[in-house]
């Protein structure tokens, strides 16, 4: 469960891809992610969420403001590999993250880079592959796997560094519903193992499973709260070009039609329960 210890901190972070242009991709973001938390970041395309994510492991460095990973400033080059080892990053296209031609060799890539002794690499990768649920596929060639399996190979490849935090940058966007469910299951397992999760997503149903939801628009954080708090504000979310889960939308429409429904109904289970109370 989340405690008060900060793992990622951003203080007034500004970033532009092109310093000639006045527009900031990340425009003054301050946030604090605590150890063990599962945070979902939502926002329309081009809102700066992926740019922000790349600041958490020093792929990008802030133009102004600071990013701290477990207290280490990402701009300090001495800590570069410590930061990258603490914060694992998984991207959208699983095909473009897998380096080796055999699953277990790929999972071993990061520990090899870190100079871990061979016997320990073996323990680490077995543990990572089990946690990601692809241990059975360890001898397979990655191109023969399904999208969901490939993405879990990518996750295992990052988990093998034994990071404290995992940042997923739209890692379910290219998967089918089955693959998405597999990856979500893995995320919950990692969380149970104590890993902090920051997930950037377009899927409201996934965000509804998080502890906390952040909404970004034009490089800023514009909404923040529990999924219940955020998804009850349908109108406001629509104004940021986002959806709400259908259950929340139904609740809203019912209220508009004069049917009394309580706030904070965002899952189909809760919605069915409330309707049952109303109709039984």
């Amino acid at each position, binding site marked *: 469960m989340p405690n008060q210890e900060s793992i990622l901190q951003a203080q007034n972070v500004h970033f532009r891809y092109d310093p000639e242009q006045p527009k900031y991709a990340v425009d003054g973001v301050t946030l604090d992610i605590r150890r063990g938390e599962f945070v979902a970041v939502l926002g329309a395309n081009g809102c700066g969420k992926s740019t922000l994510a790349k600041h958490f492991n020093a792929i990008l460095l802030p133009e102004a403001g600071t990013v701290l990973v477990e207290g280490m400033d990402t701009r300090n080059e001495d800590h570069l590999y410590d930061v990258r080892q603490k914060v694992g990053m998984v991207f959208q296209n699983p095909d473009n993250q897998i*380096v*080796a031609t055999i699953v277990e060799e790929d999972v071993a890539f*990061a520990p090899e880079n*870190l100079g871990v002794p061979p016997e320990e690499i073996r323990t680490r990768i077995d543990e990572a592959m089990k946690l990601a649920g692809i241990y059975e596929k360890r001898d397979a060639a990655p191109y023969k796997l399904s999208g969901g399996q490939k993405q879990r190979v990518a996750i295992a490849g*990052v988990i093998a560094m034994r990071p404290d935090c995992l940042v997923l940058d739209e890692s379910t966007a290219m998967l089918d519903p089955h693959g998405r469910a597999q990856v979500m299951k893995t995320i919950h397992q990692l969380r149970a193992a104590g890993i902090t999760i920051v997930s950037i997503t377009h899927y409201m149903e996934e965000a509804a499973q998080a502890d906390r939801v952040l909404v970004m628009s034009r490089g800023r954080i514009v909404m923040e709260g529990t999924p219940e708090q955020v998804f009850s504000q349908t109108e406001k979310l629509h104004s940021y070009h986002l959806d709400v889960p259908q259950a929340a939308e139904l609740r809203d429409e019912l209220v508009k039609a004069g049917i009394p429904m309580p706030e904070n109904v965002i899952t189909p289970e809760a919605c069915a329960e409330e309707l049952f109370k109303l109709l039984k």
Partner: protein
Amino acid sequence: MLKDITIGQHFPGHSVLHRCDPRLKLVATIAYIVVLFVAPNPLGLALSIALLAALYKIAQIPGKMILKSLKPIVPIVIFTAVLNLFFVTGQGEPLVHFWVLNIYIEGVKYAILLAVRVCALIAGTSLLTYTTSPIVLTDAIESLLRPLAKLHFPVHELAMMMTIALRFIPTLIEETEKIMNAQKARGAMLDSGTFTQRIKALVPILIPLFISAFRRADELAMAMECRCYHGGEGRTRLKQLKFTSEDFRCLVVIAVALVVIACTRLFVPGLA
């Protein structure tokens, strides 16, 4: 179809040859090629083929795989054999005299020996790729070239490039098929028309393919950085190549066999 293009086909198995240290196999293959050239006499060739047949038998690779590996080079073999047939001149009377062309008995012998030698060469290198997966072969190359790293030869980088190339070949083949289908769906004619028309028709396939390859390279580079990649320095490996006593026995057997074949040139006159 594109999927038929396979580079370094691997034929998985559990024989001694499959288990053998890839460095030994690689060096032995090179030695075998050298021996084929230093012993260009009929006896040497016969022994080489016998050795190869024995190794194929041990590796339990079906004979039709040999034929499969030879198929693509048949035109080259025939071409060079025919050239030799016509252009090697002998001392005696020509066997056949036709227009300006003369075929001598030496030409026939030479053409046959050459064809057999090329076939033995291909079958031998194929045995290496049949019994060794590309990734293991890459490890072997990296390991064998490691002394060169001291001379600032980019050994690790070379091996990394080979690994990534092997990893992305199937992905890019699949991608090419998808792009071809997408353009065919818009009426592209890829397999008809004149030569220039066909070349032109490739543009809508090559441009998206290159753009996609660059995008993949970009993303892969970032993903590798995220996994703390910083070149070969201080890197460890999950799989260490170990030279076992079994490998040592294989080394002795193969070395003796190759030396015997090489020595045939001392007793039997060669042709080259």
